[in-house]
């Protein structure tokens, strides 16, 4: 907590400075927030969610396609649309899981390092 307070004092003010019209102060403020941001480090990968949901949907709808009644087939112009849609969704889900496996999220550098890195160009 103290740390954060100091951070803010270092930039001179809270989230929106009086000097909002001064582009340099504004940019510094956003960069400070970017440094303290948690999203890159803590946000899970959406590919896992898409992959998981579509595998589950794919399996359910494919099974519905295998068990399709004549009535179902007639309604969809003789196409077993559940089967094909299910397989398509399954393939999409597997694609996302495989992609996630092959190139996992790169863990971001620890906070101090990141701060030092993005701090440097300003000093220059």
């Amino acid at each position, binding site marked *: 907590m103290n740390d*954060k*307070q100091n951070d*803010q004092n270092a930039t001179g*003010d*809270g*989230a*929106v*400075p*009086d000097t*909002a*019209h*001064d*582009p340099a102060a*504004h*940019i510094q403020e*956003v*960069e400070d*927030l*970017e440094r*303290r*941001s*948690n*999203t*890159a*480090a*803590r*946000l*899970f990968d*959406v590919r896992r*969610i*898409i992959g*998981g*949901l*579509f595998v*589950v*949907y794919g399996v*359910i*709808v494919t099974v*519905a*396609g295998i068990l*399709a009644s004549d*009535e*179902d*087939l007639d*309604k*969809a*112009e*003789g*196409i077993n*649309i*559940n089967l*094909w*849609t*299910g397989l*398509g*969704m399954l393939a*999409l889900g597997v694609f996302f899981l495989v992609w996630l496996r092959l190139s996992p999220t790169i863990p971001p550098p620890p906070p101090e390092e990141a701060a030092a890195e993005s701090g440097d*160009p*300003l000093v220059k």
Partner: protein
Amino acid sequence: MTYLAEGLRLETNALDYTLLGIYFVVVLGIGFAARASVKTSLDFFLSGRSLPAWITGLAFVAANLGATEILGMAANGAQYGVYTVHWYWVGAIPAMVFLGLVMMPFYYGSKVRSVPEFLLHRFGPSSHLLSSVIFAVSAVLIAGVNLYAMAIVLEALLGWEQWVAIVIAGFFVLAYITLGGLSSAIYTEVLQFFVILAALIPLTIVGLKHVGGWGGLSDKLTSSQGEAFTTAWDGTGIGSDNPLGANWLTIVLGLGFVMSFGYWTTNFAEVQRALSAKNMSAGQRTPLIAAFPKILIPMVVVVPGLIALVMEPTIGTEENGLQYNDAIPLLMRDLLPNGVLGIAVTGLLAAFMAGMAANISSFNTVFTNDIYAPYVKKDQPDEHYVLTARVVTVVGVLIGMGTAFIASTFSNIMNYLQTLFSFFNVPLFVVFIIGMFWKRTTPAAGFWGLLSGTAAAMVNYFYFYKQGVIDIPSDQGANFVSSIVAFVVGALVMVVVTFVTKPKPVEQLAGLVYGTVSPGMAEAPAEGDDAWYRRPALLGWGAIILAAACYVPFSF
């Protein structure tokens, strides 16, 4: 939004509801899981500016692919025929490419957190406050319209009471945005994008088979609706009559240039997705990546509209009570068996919720970042603003739900409101484009340009068109003309005011005006971003060429 016809009730069963239930659980899970990532206000409003381009790009297109858009564009397909593709290929694509190639460097490089905030830096507080308030009010009202539209669709399709739909959808949106901020909105949009495609693609395939393929479809439409109905440009000569009520000039200038550029380049609900990208290159690529699916979407939205017209030739007439908006629900009812039907219902509901979530997540950002923090309660610790944003989200959703209930008694007024708010984008676009390219443009010119452009569009629509002073055949045609009027009036006022007022000193405009550079813009591309297929210019021009090529089969 109009009432859907009776008799559209779908034969849903437990299987369909299981699929719908799974979606709700997943969406709520995204909210809870994303909560851990919210530490600063930047996390809540812009996902910490850290997302990869493919995610922000898909969210960018999905934020626009709300259910009102899907049902509405299918309705336009049934009503106006192939002309509807103009909304995509001459409308959206050039504007999205312009946003990516020309405007994003200023938006992203200046590190603004919202579209109104750019106005604060470029012009000053008066235009900033004006556009923030207009945006906040319209975002929350449009969220209410979305909610109400969803309620009548669900009532027709599933037999849910309107209040049940409003409360359930409102609650889920409230929950996941309050928890995870923009990250959960964006993740849900990406998910919704795939679910809605999984619904629309089978629908189109079965539909096409039903009417005998594309050949059968266009033959039947040509014989019933005439030659021009299945072409993009036939009958759009000035003075000639066509269902759209517009000629090629109003299509290209009104829809293609002014309206679409106004919408895509300044609508914060869209631009917010690009601002959350992880670096300049990803920010630029966000609308460009979105452009490619956007080019292809008419194939699964407009085509079902055309199919519905063949299946029910009386759609849109008094005869059987079916309206153009019923096109997609009609196909769902007649062609999809349980299973895929559940996916389609889920997709539609997901699209409604995502459309509303886009409005709410941009509303809480503009309200907190552009109204509350600079003008109401300054200089609080960052945590205070995160808490405010969460409270504002709850309040915004509750107001939206209230608006939906009010809208259910005044559906015509809500239609007017939506047209009205579409007028605010064009003047905003004038102010941006002139302010970005003409260094001398003064702060006063920004404010008066915004105000006069908006007033001019409203005068044109409510006086000249609605009172019949000038003759425009359709609402759509009138919208195109209003946009052109707003653009011209706003631009003239800005030029005149600029010459009689004092400009900002040049050193305060770094990174905000064409030809200047801000420190953020000089940032070198990240590793891998210099690959040829990630070059913004290539992606942008590729999209333009592809969109132009899509016109070929419908033009000769």
